[in-house]
């Protein structure tokens, strides 16, 4: 088996080379669902950062005690707990946001990015590495969400983070706020990322 990546490698890998959304195509459900506004997208990214960080740290702490057949149970238990905490927290302190994100916060429980990181990194490596992996992957996730959400929000409403950036006369592209816009934007951006990667590879 090849050597496990170091903490720093884990961190940098998550952001671009192994970006969970653009390179691993994981966790696409929230990517498509909550990216019609930057606020929603960033709240989702923050929630994922919290859950992933906590889950990775806990799993990494108990990694030597895991039994193969009970491993997944423990992963889900841990993840579900932290997701519930986030969900309740949002409902208490960011009520409107929690309403507009709807079921997508509870759905983080089944977000494959998190269980994938627990399985790939946290259950094998030290706490520091697992934590930096969690932060790196979450930043990558946030970056992906931000890229899609900024396109969708600006084109769809002429606003960015709820502030008007395009002139009043801008005709809102309603389709960008609706689900088809998510698929189109994600597809085009994914294509662009693949194109850039291919160009880079060809250069080397």
């Amino acid at each position: 088996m090849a050597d496990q990546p170091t903490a720093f490698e884990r961190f940098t890998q998550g952001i671009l080379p192994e970006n969970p959304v653009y390179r691993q195509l994981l966790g696409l459900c929230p990517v498509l669902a909550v990216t019609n506004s930057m606020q929603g997208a960033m709240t989702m990214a923050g929630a994922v950062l919290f859950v992933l960080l906590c889950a990775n740290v806990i799993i990494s702490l108990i990694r030597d005690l895991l039994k193969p057949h009970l491993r997944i149970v423990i992963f889900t238990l841990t993840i579900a707990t932290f997701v519930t905490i986030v969900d309740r927290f949002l409902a208490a302190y960011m009520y409107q946001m929690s309403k507009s994100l709807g079921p997508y916060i509870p759905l983080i429980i089944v977000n494959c990015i998190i269980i994938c990181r627990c399985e790939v990194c946290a259950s094998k490596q030290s706490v520091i590495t697992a934590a930096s992996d969690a932060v790196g992957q979450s930043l990558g996730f946030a970056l992906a969400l931000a890229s899609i959400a900024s396109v969708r929000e600006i084109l769809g409403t002429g606003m960015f983070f709820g502030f008007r950036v395009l002139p009043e006369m801008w005709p809102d592209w309603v389709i960008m706020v609706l689900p088809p816009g998510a698929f189109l934007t994600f597809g085009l951006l994914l294509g662009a990322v693949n194109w850039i990667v291919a160009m880079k590879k060809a250069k080397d």
Partner: protein
Amino acid sequence: MKPSEQTMPGDNNRISNFFIFQAWLVLLLASFFGASLAGIQLTLSPKIEANKLNETLEKVPELIFGAEAAQSFAEENRQMDIERQYIKAGNKIYSVFQAKTDDQTSGWVVKSSGQGYADKIELLVGVDAKAETISGLFILDQKETPGLGNKIMEQAWRNQFNNKSTQQPMTAVKTKASAPNEINAITGATISSKAVCGIVNQSLNNLRQPLAKALLNDQNPSDNQPNNHQEKK
């Protein structure tokens, strides 16, 4: 854990115990997480409940007195008591807020919902004390087409409902509204407009009499009828 133990035949008891013993970590985590979640829920749930209620309560003065009156009302720091009741009418249970100022019922706010163009529309209708005229309308939740149907959120459109009688059902018309019970439909979103009218009509139709009745009961406490769960049609 010695692996040799796990396939010992005939020794059910030992195997059963072994399964449980093997899972000590799961059990520990489960109880720990369960306890901590309960703690969090205990801390946060009052806040969440308050959030849910506030969303409606905040709107009540505005829906009953109109935006400006509500503003001055708040500035004068006058107290308004809002009482929540559940009234069963038609085949629905409505959540109704009774607003009282100086022990006088000044109006009612009805929470109602129904099918819109895209999804459920949830709205609040304010009516005066006798449930005769509409004093305000507010859309709590909707998923209508952005740019078209979601114009039902706009104040200007909602204000058309103010001071309409509850006796006649509202209709949304595409051309200029002429009759007193007509509402100008939003251009290109006739269905959403009609849906809102429909929800308002249905809930008022159901609640007009129960609310009037409740008001009477309120004024003559001798009837000694609790307002909750009235079974009146």
